[in-house]
């Protein structure tokens, strides 16, 4: 049962344009969300996170938006660069049950930024 879903397995964007990666979740207890970028055979690299008390968090070219009522979050990359080409995973966790709770990953979206 996939609690975090990324319905677009792949996305292609022209360099300089905006990349929008979407993520949906089903568990209303999730209150912390993270985005990771991953290259083949490497560990996921943390990008940006957002707590459920916010609806937006910005860090340089990366902005994450959270819509709690829709159980939806999105990652915006502006402007997109060829080096952004990778697989992007969203992850969600619940802090309600103690420290060290697992975080659940989505299925990933492969982003290709075309020069």
């Amino acid at each position: 049962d996939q609690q975090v879903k990324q319905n677009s397995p792949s996305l292609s964007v022209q360099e300089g344009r905006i990349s929008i990666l979407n993520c949906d979740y089903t568990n209303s207890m999730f209150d912390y969300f993270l985005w990771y970028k991953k290259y083949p055979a490497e560990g996921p690299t943390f990008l940006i996170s957002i707590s459920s008390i916010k609806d937006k968090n910005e860090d340089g070219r990366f902005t994450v938006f959270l819509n709690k009522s829709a159980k939806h979050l999105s990652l915006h990359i502006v402007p997109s660069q060829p080096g952004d080409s990778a697989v992007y995973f969203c992850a969600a966790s619940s802090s309600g049950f103690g420290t060290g709770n697992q975080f659940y990953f989505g299925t990933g979206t492969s982003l290709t930024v075309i020069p």
Partner: protein
Amino acid sequence: AAGVIQSPRHLIKEKRETATLKCYPIPRHDTVYWYQQGPGQDPQFLISFYEKMQSDKGSIPDRFSAQQFSDYHSELNMSSLELGDSALYFCASSLGGLQGGTEAFFGQGTRLTVV
């Protein structure tokens, strides 16, 4: 800055053998998470530890065990290896879990191949 260190990076074992994967968290981090990622799949949570105690448990087979030591490093012990255990094994660490907005950072992973 120091990152999460995993060893070994690559491991080849035969069926029914045992394997031990090690994870050294970022200094001062007290929480360790283990994830397994099969080819083309999203990372699946195995187990986590906080302050040397098991914190959360996912889809970890009974053939696997793990612990966190006094220096906060963690070891994942895998016995009676099966072909299906071939995967990338990632360890992540965080400070105090994901409560309070801390992030989890991943190591580069151990690629286990069972032949």
